[in-house]
């Protein structure tokens, strides 16, 4: 880095560079998403292999139980948060019986999808950037291109398909864990009667909310996968560059998941709220 103040030329070059990067990024996302069909047709074996790898995780992460355990643990802890904070806050105003309602309402609409988005970015997303980035540095991607393989389809689109498919069981586990954690905390630890908890929980649990929550999780998974494959694909600067690319990808995709969730929430519940206290 130089100590001089940036001149006008530097600034305009920077502006042009970042605009070009934005365009390249958009083009990459579009072609990665557009060739998902081709990826399934041409490389079904690769998609299956990626599903297995993503579900179990690799290296030190597989030792602690893989992606399922990590995502389950994270939603377990945020679900328990509802029990701790919700039960205590509600009991301040004497309506702790409604903790079951909080679980059915907040876990489904906000807590579970938000936590799952962050967890997906950290696990399958960051793993994809590390793998693809290492392939780029080892010039394996160039080798694939020379062999006439469409690298974006083979490396990025397959991962988008695998990520979206693997999220279905993962998110099921995540939502169940958040429900179980809130129920366990409220009924076993704080000693609320199970009948009261279950009554309010099932009264306010709406299947359509769960469906939207699932759609949000699937959209976030697709977003996380395209962002992370892009950063892996464009990694430069030797082994150190791969690490930096993983960090940048996590920063971007964590922000992106929240915006996806915000957009879906406002679009679905913005007009009516889909909440009826009196039937």
């Amino acid at each position, binding site marked *: 880095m130089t100590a001089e103040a940036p001149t006008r030329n530097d600034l305009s070059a920077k502006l042009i560079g970042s605009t070009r990067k934005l365009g390249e990024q958009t083009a990459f996302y579009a072609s990665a998403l557009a060739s998902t069909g081709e990826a399934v047709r041409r490389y079904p074996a690769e998609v299956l292999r990626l599903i297995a790898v993503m579900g179990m995780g690799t290296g030190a*992460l597989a030792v602690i139980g893989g992606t399922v355990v990590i995502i389950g643990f994270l939603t377990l802890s945020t679900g328990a948060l509802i029990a*701790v904070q919700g039960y205590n806050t509600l009991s301040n105003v004497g309506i702790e019986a409604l903790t079951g309602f909080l679980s059915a309402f907040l876990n489904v609409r906000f807590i579970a999808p938000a936590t799952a988005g962050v967890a997906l970015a*950290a696990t399958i997303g960051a*793993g994809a950037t590390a793998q693809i980035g290492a392939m780029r540095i080892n010039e394996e991607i160039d080798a694939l291109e020379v062999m006439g393989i469409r690298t974006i389809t083979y490396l990025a689109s397959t991962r988008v398909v695998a990520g979206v498919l693997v999220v279905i069981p993962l998110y099921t586990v995540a939502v169940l864990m958040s429900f179980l954690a809130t129920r366990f905390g409220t009924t076993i630890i704080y000693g609320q009667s199970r009948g009261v908890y279950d009554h309010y929980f099932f009264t306010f649990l709406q299947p359509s909310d769960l469906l939207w929550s699932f759609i949000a999780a699937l959209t976030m998974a697709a977003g996380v996968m395209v962002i992370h494959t892009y950063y892996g694909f464009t990694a430069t600067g030797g082994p150190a560059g*791969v690490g930096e690319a*993983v*960090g940048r990808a*996590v*920063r971007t995709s964590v922000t992106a998941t929240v915006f996806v*969730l915000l957009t879906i929430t406002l679009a679905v519940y913005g007009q009516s709220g889909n909440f009826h206290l009196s039937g």
Partner: protein
Amino acid sequence: MAQKPHASIAPQAAWAKPAVAVGDFVVLAGETFAAMFRRPFAWRELLDQIWFVARVSIVPTVMLSMPYTVLIVFTLNVVLLEVGAGDLSGAGAALASVTQVGPVVTAIVVAGAGATAMCADLGARTIREEIDAMTVMGVNPIRALVVPRVVAATFVALMLYSVVAVVGLAGSYVFVVFVQHVTPGSFVAGMTLLTGLPQVIVSLVKALLFGLSAGLIACYKGLSVGGGPTAVGNAVNETVVFAFMALFLINILATAFGVKVAP
């Protein structure tokens, strides 16, 4: 610092590797705490690191805290407006952003932005054998590199929590008043209904613990990187996963503790 055991004495069982890693981490944490209060303190490195962590964290902080608070305030207001208690949305917003969204967003940013960047930086130095060179020259890497990084992560986490809480409250004010048409006066009046100084202090303690543990995890993973291009990427991946798990665990324990001391 985290030394790899020699191949001939390294235990061979499958469970031995994670056990050795946990042991190494505890050693690193102990050495860091011991070196923290010993002179000379690497002030210049500390300032550099504070600037570095703050620089990579500030944009994700602002970009995360506003949508998170708006989301939770919106979801709570669906209920409050239905039962005709829209005036209480200030209480919900303050409780959500000060006690929960603030610490959780701080945890996500410190682990996802600060720790990843720190681990990538240290990992790059490790594979370029800069750390070994420092040791040979008689410079203690713990004192010169790890202590300033851990202190910087802790300090920045504290500052970030304040930014998250203020940005979140401001964002929810704008959203609730201008989009959902709640009276501004009742929003502001409700803010201190459930939330006060004790809650803020508990959250600040949480942020401090987040920064400390994320910094230690990032430094451990960065210093114990093996060779090859996959290694640094995997180290950063493991950093973000372990940091998230540690921070979410600390958050739930600290919350349970917090509602006892500051109901």
